[in-house]
Every structure is written in structure tokens, then in C-alpha cells.
């Protein structure tokens, strides 16, 4: 529960700031600052301590709003970008790179959505002869905070009128009420991330159960929404083949194949610096028991293990979801 909100002075009067503040019924502590970096980027912060009670930081995103993503992370497109209207997540997955990426565990929300819209539309125009893919949910869970951020209702209209832009909303949340009220948008993909239930229970703290997420996908599919399946990271565990097969089978029996846009998967991977920071801050992580190898500065499983896991995953996916394109997110 948020008890403190830091607000940049320049957006004190912003319409979205006022909307967000009006959603807090209980008295909250508001602290004004000149720049979010005064709170968010302070080096000596302890991510794990802050994660126990994160504050909300409202700010204006300056500079570049869209960032290129590697081709190997695509879901079939050539022009791929990610954007982050928010940094950090309400969930606490032990493998999450955010805990090694940011100094702070506070939720940082950029309220100037309109500046994101301008860049997105500009990019769509620039790439007018091909589809542009926009990924949301790299630095946050786009849906988990939707009740507060109004992300869905704000960003959907941009893609309703720009059919050459494809939006992927990546989530582990079941906050789909606002999407269900909306008419399906053909160029929007609601992509759900999964690990098998027993792994999720162990290391994806505060994340809704696999069952609840599958129910959400089922409801969305029934309404005609396109669903993305994301198995990233793949985590080797006891009965690896069986637990992943059970998960795929469960999804396939609940979500019709024609509603599934794409499947992607990826091995756990961290740049060296991020990996070291994570281990330092969270030494009792269960994932540290996995056998990580340093592959040219990227900590992941050995090449042999990766190949073995890939073969099992692709084999099982094809067994239950034959005609859906599968992408391996490799670094």
C-alpha cells in the first residue's frame, strides 16, 4: 500500500497527477521534489529494504521515450521498440532484472503520456511501409497498476487509429477489467508471462496464480483479444519436461489457438554487473543455486543446457500449439 508520493514540482498541476492523487482515499504523505533522480537515482539506497514499502514517484519523462530492442527479441516484426511509462513493479520475482537495474524500488511513473504518444505516432509514420512493434512491460508490469495509472484507456486509442503500430502489453497481472470493457483491438496483444506453478509459487512473490492468469487469458480470448504467451525466463527445475508440458497443456486447453498471436521464450540471462548486484542484495535467492556460466559477459546457463532446454520447450509447445509462431529470445 502506497503511503508516500513524491511529485516533481513541474508536474504538480498536471491533469494526470491530479487524477492519480484523487484515487487515494486515505491520507497520504506528499513530498515535492525538483527532479525524480533526487529520490530514485541515489546510489546508496537499499533496493531490498525499499521493496518492503515502496513509495510512488510521479515525474515527467524527458528525452527519448522509445528504445530499440534487439531483433532476436522480436515477435515477427523488423521494427521493434520498447517504452516505459513506469519503472519498477509491484511483484517481486527473484529473477527480475529490475532489482539489479535500478537503484530504487520505488514505483516511478511518468505522467506525460502525451509525449509518448507523439513519439509512437512519429515512429509509425516514419516506418509507414511496415509494421512497427511497441513493447510495454519491460521495466514494469503495465497492467498491475492500471487502476492507478489508467495506462490501458490512455494508450489504446493511439493504436486504434494507427493500425500499422502493434502494441504488446506484457503482464503477470489479472487486472483485465478495463480491457474487457474495451472492444478488441486487432493490433494489440495482451502477453502473459508464465513459469510453471510450483516455480512461480517459490520465486514469483505476490504474482497471481497460474490458474488466475490462465482464467484472465481465457476471458480476454473469449472477447476476441489476441494473446501472447511469454515463457521468459525458462527455469530448469525438477521434472522440468513434465511441469512445462503440464503448463502448455493447461493453457492450450483454455485458450483457443486462433486467439494466440505468438509464443516467445528465453533463458535466464543477466549482464555481469547486474548479476553481481542482485546476488549481493539478495544472497538467499533460490535462483542462485542454478548453475550460471559467464558467456562473454552474460550470466546464463551453459550453451549445452540452453540447447537441451530449448529442444524440450519447442518440442512440447509444438505438441499442444502447433500453428503458433515460436520465438527464442537470445542475447
Amino acid at each position, binding site marked *: 500500500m502506497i*503511503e*508516500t508520493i*513524491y511529485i516533481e514540482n513541474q508536474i504538480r498541476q498536471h491533469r494526470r497527477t491530479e487524477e492519480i492523487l484523487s484515487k487515494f482515499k486515505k491520507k497520504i*504523505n506528499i*513530498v*515535492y*521534489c*525538483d527532479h525524480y533522480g*533526487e*529520490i530514485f537515482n*541515489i546510489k*546508496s*539506497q*537499499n533496493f531490498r*529494504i*525499499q521493496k*518492503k*514499502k515502496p*513509495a510512488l514517484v510521479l515525474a515527467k519523462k524527458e528525452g527519448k521515450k522509445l528504445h530499440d530492442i534487439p531483433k532476436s527479441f522480436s515477435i515477427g516484426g523488423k521494427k521493434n521498440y520498447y517504452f516505459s511509462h513506469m519503472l519498477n513493479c509491484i511483484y517481486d520475482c527473484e529473477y527480475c532484472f529490475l532489482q539489479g537495474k535500478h537503484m530504487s524500488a520505488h514505483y516511478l511513473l511518468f505522467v506525460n503520456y502525451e509525449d509518448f504518444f507523439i513519439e509512437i505516432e512519429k515512429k509509425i509514420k516514419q516506418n509507414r511501409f511496415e509494421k512497427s512493434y511497441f513493447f510495454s512491460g519491460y521495466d514494469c508490469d503495465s497492467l498491475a497498476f492500471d487502476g492507478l495509472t489508467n495506462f490501458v484507456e490512455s494508450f489504446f486509442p493511439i493504436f486504434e487509429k494507427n493500425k500499422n503500430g502493434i502494441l504488446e502489453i506484457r503482464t503477470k497481472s489479472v487486472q483485465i477489467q478495463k480491457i474487457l470493457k474495451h472492444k478488441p483491438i486487432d493490433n494489440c496483444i495482451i502477453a502473459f508471462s508464465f513459469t510453471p506453478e510450483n516455480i512461480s509459487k517459490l520465486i514469483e512473490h505476490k504474482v497471481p496464480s497460474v490458474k488466475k492468469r490462465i482464467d484472465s487469458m481465457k476471458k480476454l480470448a473469449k472477447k476476441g483479444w489476441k494473446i501472447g504467451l511469454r515463457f521468459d525466463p525458462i527455469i530448469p527445475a525438477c521434472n522440468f519436461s513434465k511441469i512445462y508440458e503440464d503448463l502448455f497443456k493447461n493453457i492450450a486447453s483454455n485458450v483457443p489457438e486462433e486467439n494466440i498471436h505468438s509464443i516467445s521464450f528465453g533463458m535466464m540471462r543477466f549482464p555481469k554487473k547486474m548479476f553481481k548486484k542482485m546476488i549481493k542484495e539478495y544472497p538467499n535467492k533460490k535462483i542462485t543455486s542454478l548453475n550460471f556460466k559467464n558467456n562473454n559477459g552474460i550470466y546464463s546457463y551453459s550453451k549445452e543446457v540452453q540447447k537441451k532446454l530449448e529442444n524440450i520447450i519447442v518440442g512440447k509447445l509444438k505438441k499442444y500449439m502447433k500453428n503458433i509462431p515460436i520465438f527464442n529470445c537470445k542475447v
Partner: protein
Amino acid sequence: MHKTNEINIVVAMEREAIPLINYWDLKKNSKKFYSNKKKKINLIISGIGKKRAEKATIYLAEKTDNNSFFLNIGIAGHKNYKLGEVILISKITDNKNKYSWYPSLLWKTKIKKAPLITVIFPKIRYTNNSLYDMEAAGFFKGARNFVGPEKAQCIKVVSDNKDSSILNISSKKIENWIYSKTPVINKLVNEFLKV
């Protein structure tokens, strides 16, 4: 009291320190330095002003464990707050260079939170909704060399407002205000030490 961390407390004046020294049963180590090893509480009387507060904080930091918690306790003025009211500080600004510190507010407490401005001379007119003191910026400048925003905090007790100026403050009043708030401060200290 949790026994894992030490807490280093910086207060400006002896009158502010006396009720705390008595409450925690702190023993005098040197002229301005008190401690209770069992309770892991250290207290230093810095003298008035941010430079003195900074120096005293660094002295404590160098003398104690590097996992210590730092706390500044003292009096401050505010336009409207009631005399004797206890406030947990949410933002500290050095009025001279406008630099600000933001202590993380992670605590289970109903104590009011408010920003504070550290000034060089006592404030007679309260121009905005902040508290005013003369030490906190120096304390934070010193403490934050050693710990992050979670482990440096500031508690102030209101000593003057628009109806009762700084000229009405007396040593006895200071002692009484701090004395009456010591149980509340102690509760908060216990919260701090859970970190």
C-alpha cells in the same frame, strides 16, 4: 529494542539530550558523548548549527559500526503546528545551497510527516509550510556519507510557531517537550531498528 544495529543519535543542545539520556539510561563516555552498550544507543551533543551537527555525526560514524542507523532529534519551528507536536521529517533542504535529502519513509507510524529547511539563523517569520531548524542539513550531509536514505532519519518537536515565537522558548520548555515525547520517539526508534 532490536539488538542487531546500533543507533547513533545527534542532538544539538544538552536540554534536548537530558530527557533522552535519562529515558535510555545512557552513560557519559566523554564530555558530549553518551551511550548504552546493551541497548546499542549512542548519543552526541553537537552544539548548535549545521557545521557542528555534521562534524558530530561524522565523529559518531567513525567511532561506531558501519551498519549503524543515524537519527537527528531536536526542536524546530513551524507556522501552524502545535507546540510540543512531534514530526518525522520527509525532506530536508539546506537553505544556503538548496540541496535536499529525502529519508525513506518505511515506518509503521501515525506520526505526522513534513519537510524541513535548515537555516543559518533562527527563523522568526515562517514563509512556507516547512519546519525550520539549524542542524538537520549538516546531520544529513554527514550521515549520508555512511548510510543510505533508509538509515538516516530526523525527528523534530515543535518549539515555536506563529503564535509563540522563538523568543518564548526556554530551556525548561525544551526539556519538557522532548520529555513528553520520549515514549513516542522510543517507539519510532524501535521501528527504525527493524530495518
